[in-house]
């Protein structure tokens, strides 16, 4: 007959591991584990990548976003936080938003970046970016989402003939690649990242956190 074992200490250990692991995951959800880091002087490659700009050139603060259209956290940032940034900071000329492509290497996502750039050629980059982020779960697993991207292009109201030619020519691939190089030059290795006044915020930050660093940059600009 099997000897009866006292399993209480084992179950206690299991509970401790479960609670500690759960607490760690919970803290990761809040992004508290990632402190902002100061970005050094921008290299030539970082400055050369223009990205896509929303807002006034005279706004005193620039928020630079590095994102991958296939990254779930980037979609979360784009859907939950960026609308507030646009409404409360960009539309009021407190800041302008500069989007730099930072594709992480998935060929389907590379195509999404090109689709956004081709829409950008016709002045609809941010509208197309919104479509890509909002519908990310619908296209990210497709082998060939070109038809879906074309539907997004139609939805944002651009000329589909010009869009199709642009996509076929991979016309803006160098621009997309330049955005990635700009990110690499300042040490970016994951997305999303926001750079505000020389401070890099890691992950999908809430609006309040972004506002804090915009205010800090405003104070520095006023000095």
């Amino acid at each position, binding site marked *: *007959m*099997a000897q*009866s*074992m006292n*399993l209480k200490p*084992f179950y206690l*250990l*299991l509970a401790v*591991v*479960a609670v500690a*692991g*759960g607490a*760690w*995951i919970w803290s*990761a*959800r809040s*992004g508290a*584990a*990632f402190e902002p880091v100061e970005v050094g002087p921008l290299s030539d490659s970082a400055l050369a990548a223009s990205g896509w700009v929303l807002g006034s050139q005279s706004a005193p603060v620039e928020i630079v976003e590095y994102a*991958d259209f*296939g*990254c*779930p*956290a980037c*979609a*979360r*940032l784009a859907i939950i936080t960026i609308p507030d940034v646009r409404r409360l900071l960009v539309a009021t000329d407190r800041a302008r938003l500069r989007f730099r492509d930072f594709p*992480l*290497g*998935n*060929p*389907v*996502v590379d195509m999404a970046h090109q689709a956004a750039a081709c829409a950008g050629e016709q002045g609809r980059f941010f509208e197309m970016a919104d479509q890509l982020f909002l519908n990310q779960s619908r296209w990210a*697993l497709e082998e060939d989402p070109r038809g879906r991207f074309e539907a997004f292009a139609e939805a944002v109201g651009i000329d589909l003939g010009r869009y199709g030619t642009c996509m076929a020519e991979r016309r803006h691939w160098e621009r997309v690649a330049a955005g990635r190089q700009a990110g690499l030059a300042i040490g*970016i*290795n*994951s*997305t*999303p990242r926001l750079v505000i006044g020389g401070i890099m915020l*890691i*992950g*999908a*930050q809430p609006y309040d956190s972004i506002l804090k660093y915009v205010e800090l940059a405003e104070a520095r600009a006023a000095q």
Partner: protein
Amino acid sequence: MTHRMVAALLALVGLLISVYLWLWKVGAIGVLACGDGGCETVQLSKYGDFLGVPVALWGMLAYGGMLALALLGLQPRWQTRREPTLGLLVVSGAGVAFSAYLTYLEAAVIHAWCRWCVVSALLVTVIFVTALVGWRGLGHAPAPAVSAG
């Protein structure tokens, strides 16, 4: 029963890692603690999903199953039975094979390393070895007592 306790503990750690990676995959976690960004590259590659489901979700199912089997095997009426250990062998064996395939993809196709995936591969390998040792031990154990009516 030590092998089932070890397997339960490791399966719990694997389950937590899978939950963490899955939460990131669905956008609930802003950034992965991964060092060089390799985790994002691997997770966002086309190999980050298997049969239309995130690999991390498969991991959750596998580790959850192994945890349940190991805990079941610790219950008094199952302690001397071999089925829970056999189940652990089958599930962890499949996990080892799948992890080996994913590790090959990281090294040879994606050219990026997901540290959490490597830790998971090690965990499932240790669970498999532990189950194997436990299986051999059970082979020498006395048969469960049968009460005569």
